[in-house]
């Protein structure tokens, strides 16, 4: 395993693993714990989890890559998820997605050049009577227009 070039807090990650490893089916809670705390699951944290849970590195890696939610690179300062599912499409989500990609200059799973925003697709936020829906850093927004989207992006860029 190569050494990661991105610094991350090894003691913090070890602390999370240690606190959760005794749970049945501990890998998912551990992965969430790490991503909640440092924003992503670093590749070189894989051996630490594998050893603690008596799993192979392949099993841990396979689990991380199976789920859309987990990321293995540091995110932008803000995570912006746009719903692509049918109810939001019925209210113009595809136009909102095109607008977002154009104004941010990125595709899904990419981060803007200034490091401010990571754009992600999501398939249903359960806000289907208030479409189109968007989630920003875990905060749900409904009936999002291109204008309110632009305002949101402006606010995010000005925030640390």
């Amino acid at each position, binding site marked *: 395993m190569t050494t990661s070039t991105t610094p991350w807090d090894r003691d913090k990650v070890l602390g999370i693993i240690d606190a959760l490893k005794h749970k*049945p*089916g*501990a*890998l*998912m*809670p551990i*992965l*969430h714990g790490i991503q909640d705390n440092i924003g992503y699951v670093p590749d070189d944290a894989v051996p630490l989890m594998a050893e603690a*849970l008596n799993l192979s590195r392949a*099993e841990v890696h*396979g*689990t991380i890559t*199976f*789920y*859309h*939610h*987990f990321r293995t690179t540091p995110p932008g300062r803000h995570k912006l998820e746009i719903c692509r*599912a*049918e*109810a*939001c*499409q*019925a*209210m113009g989500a595809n136009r909102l997605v095109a607008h977002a990609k154009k104004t941010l200059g990125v595709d899904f799973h990419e981060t803007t050049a200034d490091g401010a925003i990571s754009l992600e697709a*999501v*398939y*249903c*936020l*359960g*806000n*289907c*009577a*208030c*479409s189109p*829906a968007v*989630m920003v850093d*875990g*905060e*749900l*927004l*409904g*009936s999002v227009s291109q204008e309110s989207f632009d305002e949101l992006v402006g606010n995010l860029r000005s925030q640390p």
Partner: protein
Amino acid sequence: MTIKVYIPRDSASISLGADKVARTIAVEAARRGATIELVRNGSRGMFWLEPMIEVSTPEGRVAYGPVFPGDVSDLFEADFLYGGQHHLRLGLTEDIPYFAKQKRLTFARVGITDPVSIDDYLAHDGYRGLTNALKMTPADIVEEVTTSGLRGRGGAAFPTGIKWRTVLGAQADQKYIVCNADEGDSGTFSDRMIMEGDPLVLIEGMTIAGLAVGATMGYIYLRSEYPYAEVALNEAIAAANARGYLGDDILGSGKTFHLEVRRGAGAYVCGEETSLLESLEGKRGMVRFKPPLPALEGLFGKPTVVNNVISLASVPIILDQGGANYQEYGVGRSRGTLPFQLAGNIKYGGLVEAAFGLTIRELLYDFGGGSRTGRPIRAVQIGGPLGAYVPESQFDLPLDYEELGKNDAMLGHGGLVVFDDTVDMAQMARFGMEFCAIESCGKCTPCRIGSTRGVEVIDRMVEGKDRPKQVILLRELCDTMLSGSLCALGGMAPFPVLSALNHFPEDFGLAEPADKAA
């Protein structure tokens, strides 16, 4: 006198500004020296009126909505704390026709109580089902649920009592109750509304399930897209533990039941029960072969009840009022009520709990008021991304499991996604295949490869390359996926595709109905 003001903590209400309204009202009340108690309730489910606030008056609760922060000062001027007149005043909440026409059993408390208050829950008939269950034998509890006719509300509609009986009969040192809260279907939000608006009813339902089958541990597998529900569930679980409704000695009965929320990670297929169990075990969410049934070899190889949120949340009222009472509602083999969800391009979107048997048209027009854009409704997708697109000619079908099934459609989890006449059904069919390709677990070939081939075939059809041949190819591909897939993802992805092709062939560039053109 302290006046109670209700402002929902439901995430859809928050998405429209409920938190800001709550803060503004608190500040304004303090400024004016008014003594109020802010209660963050669940939503009544009328989302075009959200953020909807309510005040308690001697006549009952009076609603105002939609209320935005800029309206607050004006509302105080109008004496809204005493039900004063204002252009946003909606009258008594319970008299609003959309609400008054419903039959709320599972959602009886949602929007009324403080979701995480045990006292509020008890004051509104909460924990009566559990109290009854504690006096019954496990077999009698199972029998009561069987009598109710309750069928799995996640979509598969398997009789809940039969599933419980299997787990009750299994011998093991440990059994589990697993709640499938991976509500991934677009157009559905009833699970979310229960978990945010009345999480204690789900907790009570799971506790009863534990008593019924002899399980002492329960997990709620919650999708990561629902962070607000996670907060509400954990608050409610803590409250139930503190008051002895969960734990090692439930209400002094000597019975044990523990409950934990586990978070998914954005995989639609984990709504499939065996994939969900794999995920709970900390693995990739790969679908398992059946048999063995999860009821016999489920979580960690132990007998496991896997039920949807609404199934489990319907159990307390069945144990409270009796299975016979519950099965009085509904039609045919679809007994009880279903919380329908009106979504997408609909004027009055929201949650409508009603007995099975009302028609699609009644739901779309009598409740929904037609499309939000004001254009004609062209298609409705019922039952999530694996459900069929239903054309106007079928809007008089009653909403029950069997009737929709006979017409190559399905009720699923009860969500209806409405599209107006600007929809391109070939693109929706393409999205059906694309979604299946993105979300396939990859274990079986028809789903993993078939979905990608499906996208390609539809693309060629739209481009006009050998259309008649592509139609044959697409139908054969769908047939392979229908018959050869391991689970419902690949096995039902053809439903939206074929229904789009059959009902809207012109969108695929086919002049005649597709079956004739083929």
